[in-house]
């Protein structure tokens, strides 16, 4: 890690309009949880919180969108703006650059999504014992943010169209393909995250089901994060300045 890069990236990511947009996105689950609390018709709060709020809204939508925005912007905006040379013309190992950028993207994504899931979850689940749903999703989301961000940081080094490529991964691959072909679940961070969340709850399969077993999901998540980060370091070492840059 490098403190100067961490501080720089924090200012880069948080000082922009897109973070404001993300705060609005993060409030959506809270709003829907309030609606559920006052207008909801499902009697099983744990089931609704786990499946609809947790799996669909948070893990299926907010988490990947926040991660793709922060993950591709952390390093990608430096390439786009032509400022990357200032970081790379320094006696710093590329792994430090990647790890510092990844750390900030992860913290930004994690903090935003965690706040959203905890507040919205607490509203929706009320005061009954929650069978570990809140804790399960909090941990899963924290871990899932890291896996997503490492993949999106890698993408931002490989392509100038990282944002849309990441969105295609999220919505076509994880959204459509995994719904149609079950085998693709081993390459779906969404399924890893849900697997980990399920692992930490005491809910029954009928209340909340995951496609991957907990240990399997966690192992895949760790492998994916490490692999993506390692590839990102390699790609950054080979990064060449573009014709315009």
């Amino acid at each position, binding site marked *: 890690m490098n403190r100067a890069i961490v501080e720089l990236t924090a200012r880069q990511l948080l000082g922009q*309009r*897109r973070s404001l*947009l993300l705060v609005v*996105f993060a409030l*959506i689950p809270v709003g*829907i949880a309030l*609606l*559920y609390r006052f*207008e*909801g*018709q*499902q009697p099983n709060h744990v089931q*609704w919180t786990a499946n*609809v709020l947790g799996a*669909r*809204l948070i893990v*299926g*939508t907010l988490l990947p*969108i926040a991660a793709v*925005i922060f993950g*591709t*912007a952390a390093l990608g*905006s430096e390439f786009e703006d032509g400022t990357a040379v200032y970081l790379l013309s320094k006696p710093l190992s590329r792994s430090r650059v990647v790890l510092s950028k990844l750390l900030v993207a992860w913290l930004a994504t994690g903090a935003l999504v965690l706040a959203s899931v905890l507040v919205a979850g607490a509203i929706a689940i009320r005061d009954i014992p929650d069978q570990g749903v809140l804790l399960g999703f909090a941990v899963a989301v924290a871990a899932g943010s890291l896996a997503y961000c490492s993949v999106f940081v890698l993408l931002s080094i490989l*392509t*100038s*169209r990282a*944002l*849309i*490529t990441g*969105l*295609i991964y999220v*919505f*076509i691959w994880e*959204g*459509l393909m995994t719904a149609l072909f079950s085998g693709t679940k081993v390459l779906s961070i969404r399924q890893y995250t849900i697997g980990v969340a399920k692992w930490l709850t005491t809910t029954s399969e009928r209340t909340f089901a995951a496609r991957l077993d907990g240990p399997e999901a966690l192992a895949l998540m760790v492998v994916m994060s490490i692999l993506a980060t390692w590839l990102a370091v390699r790609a950054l070492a080979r990064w060449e300045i573009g014709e315009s840059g």
Partner: protein
Amino acid sequence: MSQRDEPAGSIYDLGYRRYDGPRLGRRHAMLSLYLFSLRGAFGLGRRTSSKIIPIAIAIIAATPAVIQLGVGAIVSSEHLHVIRPENYFNFIQIAVALFCAAVAPEVMGRDQRTRTLPLYFSRALLRSDYVLGKLAALWTALLFLTFVPQALLFLGNGMASSNSTGYWRDNWMDFPRIVASGALVAALFASLSLLVAAQTARRAYATVSVIALFVISSVISEVISGTAGGVWGQAAVLLTPFEVVRATILWVFQSNAESGSALAQADLPGYVFFAMLCAATAIAAWLVVRRYERIAV
């Protein structure tokens, strides 16, 4: 870098000449802008990396049709209609939204990013012509997703049928409906995504905002209609362009929403959605024109 002591100056005749020939004028300028933008939407004439994403998404949108035709060729069943034309949009809605997210910022913001906008505005083109040309380009590009695959599917199904003539006779009415629904869907997506893209020159903001408008809104709508009953659940379908489009397509095909779906729950007459779609398309287009008439270049 004169080395002489006294000032010296001369003007050389480099052979520049005034253009005295005919000028093709505004309509031709619009047509050129339209064709250039349409090619640009698919990255034609740009480097390879600009082509991959729009073309890949267009292929994804055609995949259901290709699979259906492929399966039909093998199984060769008269009654094999996995995909009804009015349901085709359900399979490709995400692809259409992603296409808009990828392409609208190229069609609309690119001239601002590369600072070529003043060049357009100093030509015969009016500012409103510029917007309409861009709108027509994105609309045409979207037809490759919302119309072309279905048209191919329709023709393919007919040709694969053992009784082609009978197939055409029974289903000929589908074709104008495919044309109409494809054109309407493309128009709504084109004008809404250009409206979003016109608000910012930065590609990333435009892409995220288009995704928010189409995809996030559909998730919200789906969750609300599945969560809350009563007026909340009914109104939820109005929150997202996807449902409005779905309902309009059903209306064009004179078909009913699947029971239990959000649209069935909303229980509104089809022409309401059709009117909403037309109004939204027109208002968004008008707002883009208004924005570009006021934009400082």
